């Protein structure tokens, strides 16, 4: 049976992070999932506006959520930043009437946070199941020592994101195991790489990146995977480039044998 979900790719997946998107679609197809890209989605803004009086910066997420609500009520995201912003705006719409009222009035809609926002990884875990993925792997990535880089945006604040344990997450490690590789657990996998200052303050970004990469290397990781285009850019651009960093969907496609399709 084919599962169908609405899909929000986000700005970067159409340009610099095409691989993240391409392999996600190919893998989904191989796993019997139809990802229906929302029509006319707009950029989520890439940072969640934390101040309660910021309404305009929430609107594009609300639009996407509202559209998804009308099309089955489940919205799959892929980019960490999109997932972070859309999940939290969704909660605002459900729980903070002072924000929801203004946003609804502005957009002339009536949306109250009913859409379920799934990250591609949680979709794999909760809707497909890692054991099913394991059974569909044709090209297990045996012997590859892979460190998962979660970064900050998927995990925190855990009360809102509800993604995984914020200090000791396991979802990506379980994913790595499912595609036949060996996960390398290192403690800096949930520490920030400094993506937001990657443009304005290279020195700080470099410091953060080396902290993550050094720790991963010391723990025996030979490559890293991530779900975030900004992390990927920052780890590559401001790191020593010795550690390959790829999108997790690329490895998934490789394991499922659909990478070249």
């Amino acid at each position, binding site marked *: 049976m084919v599962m169908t979900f609405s899909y929000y790719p986000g700005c970067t997946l159409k340009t610099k992070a095409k691989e993240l998107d391409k392999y996600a679609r190919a893998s989904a197809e191989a796993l019997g999932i139809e990802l229906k890209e929302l029509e006319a989605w707009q950029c989520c803004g890439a940072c969640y506006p934390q101040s309660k009086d910021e309404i305009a910066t929430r609107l594009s997420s609300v639009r996407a959520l509202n559209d998804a609500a009308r099309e089955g009520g489940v919205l799959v995201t892929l980019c960490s930043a999109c997932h972070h912003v859309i999940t939290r705006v969704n909660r605002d719409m459900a729980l903070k009437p002072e924000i929801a009222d203004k946003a609804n009035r502005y957009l002339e809609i009536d949306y109250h946070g009913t859409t379920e926002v799934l990250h591609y990884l949680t979709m794999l875990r909760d809707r497909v199941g890692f054991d099913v993925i394991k059974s569909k792997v044709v090209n297990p990535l045996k012997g590859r020592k892979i460190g998962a880089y979660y970064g900050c945006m998927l995990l925190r604040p855990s*009360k809102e994101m509800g993604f995984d*344990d914020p*200090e*000791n997450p396991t979802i990506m490690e379980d994913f790595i195991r499912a595609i036949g590789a060996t996960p390398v*657990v290192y*403690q800096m996998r949930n*520490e920030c790489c400094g993506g937001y200052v990657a443009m304005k303050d290279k020195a700080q970004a470099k410091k953060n990146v080396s902290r993550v990469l050094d*720790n991963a290397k*010391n723990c025996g990781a030979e490559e890293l995977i991530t779900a975030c285009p900004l992390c990927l850019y920052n780890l590559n651009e401001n790191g020593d480039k010795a550690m390959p960093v790829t999108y997790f969907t690329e490895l998934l496609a490789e394991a499922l044998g659909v990478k070249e399709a």
Partner: protein
Amino acid sequence: MQRIGVFVCWCGSNIAATVDVERVAQVMKNEPGVVFSTDYQYMCSEAGQAIIRNAIAEHKLTGIVVCSCSPRMHEATFRKTAQRAGLNPYMVEIANIREQCSWIHKDKEEGTEKAIVLARAALAKVMLNAPLIAGQSSVTKRALVIGGGIAGIQSALDIADAGYEVDIVEKEPTIGGKMSKLDKTFPTLDCSACILTPKMVDAAQNEKITLYTYSEVEEVKGFVGNFNVKIRRKARYVKEDVCTGCGACMQKCPSKKGLNEFNLGLNKRTAIYIPFAQAIPNVAVIDATQCIKIKNNKCGLCDTVCAAKAIDYNQQDEFIEREYGAIVMATGFNPIKLDKFNEYSYAECPDVITSLELERIMNAAGPTGGKLVKMSNGEHPHDITFIQCVGSRDISGRGKCYCSKICCMYTAKHAMLIRDKYPDVNVHVFYIDVRTPGKNFDEFYRRAVEEYSVDYIKGQVGKVYPEGDHLVVQGVDMLANEQIIHKTDMVVLATAIEPDPTARKIASMLTASIDTNDFITEAHPKLRPVESPTAGIFLSGVCQGPKDIPETVAQAGAAAVKVLGLLSKDKLVTNPCVSQSNELLCNGCSMCQNVCPYGAIGYEDKLINDHGIRETRRVAVVNEALCQGCGACTVTCPSGAMDLKGFTNKQIMAEVDAICK
């Protein structure tokens, strides 16, 4: 016609500052039914009570209203006053113009007006009061102590010393509780076992004390003086009265994978085991989840080697029922689980331990024989970092909002002991505040700093993670305003404590109030700290709130005294505010019987004279000894036959009317 006296208390300035007491007295003087009204500085004082007694005699009062503090505070006092003056004690009503008026309002006009309304409501009620006569009930001269830690042991010893029978129910196979796991105690550094085990032996040998270990309270019925308690004696698979505690079974048992609970899981034990060398009773117990014989019907070695023939693989849980006059809650505490605090890497790193685990590691009878080693590789550590307030004072939802009270002192103790025994080990303590109220406590903490050079750092730790074969602590020194990245060998977490999970279950069986943190509520935070508001239930130890050993022992003794005060009475006065059925109105529908939580309502066929019609009807009859006066039946009754003495429908309606006037 009622003749009511009104007495308005100033409570010094507590009431008089925000309520014009003279005006209240003046206004009340003009209320219908009131023949005397006055105010006085302290109505509860002897002089104040004399005013009441004299007024009752002089003005032939039939009822009184005292406008004062909460009835929970002084209702009993003023009832006794009335009784001494020859008035029925239930002809007294209290208008609470302190806790519920003067203390919460600032505007005097507003406070005065409200006080007058409250006084009028009390007056309206007392006008409808009827004299009530309290019944009597017997007292079973036996006490039950739930929990066999130092709190329970001390309470039981004190009760037994006074000559009363007392039973201890302990859910673990041995008494001793948390104190038996400790190595040394602050601030004197005497050995915990050396001072506890003699008390454990005393409890076992005292002929007035019966120990029910490996047992749990299953059900509680009855009320003060007459509790009926069902106790589950869990199957030990070893006959307690036959086992000699020789330990031969433990040597032969091939199943060695069970986690040693006594050592907090730091090492393993056999499936048949005696928790520790000084266990009381010194009797083995079989862990059925680990025993090969019980699981697979193979093995049976322990039975073969047992000279006393004490093993019984077919033992079942047994139930006993006993009567008690009083119950002491001494259910104790546990450190909280750390699964929400993964930033400290407790689950992943064996060298990140809790303080209680450190006690076992430091203890000569512990998993390392008292040698301080890293649990990961058995090596000697050179640097140890303590983190205080792990889960305490935490309102984020991960921990406990309260201060766990004992951690500052035991951390200072640990730091000092380590520096004393291993001067080569550097010790650091991350603290938020160091809290040391208590006799010789601050001096003790200062010794750790000044004599033993323990490095106290004001600040918290954000993350602990392994790097190579040591740990890295990322913290902050707030006084230096510096972030610290510190390499260390062991991290010790001063974990918050919480009431044992059985406390809530038992409290609800006993209908004892419990607070949002699962601590049992005391009847009054200052004046009745060892009693529950539920009569006959007493509190001992940490089940009431975090406390250290000296405080626990003091409270245990106090609880015992309260128990003795109760057991020494032959008869108890019962609450006369019980339900009453009007036979003329009752139609025998049984609805009241169904809602009564105490089974206090029965039915009788009675000859009723209903306005000249004589017929036999099935009517409800309340057993006044069983009724606790909740009033559930009064609302359920479709014909309005049930009413509650002291809180009758008419009385409450009169209060409503007075308030809404």
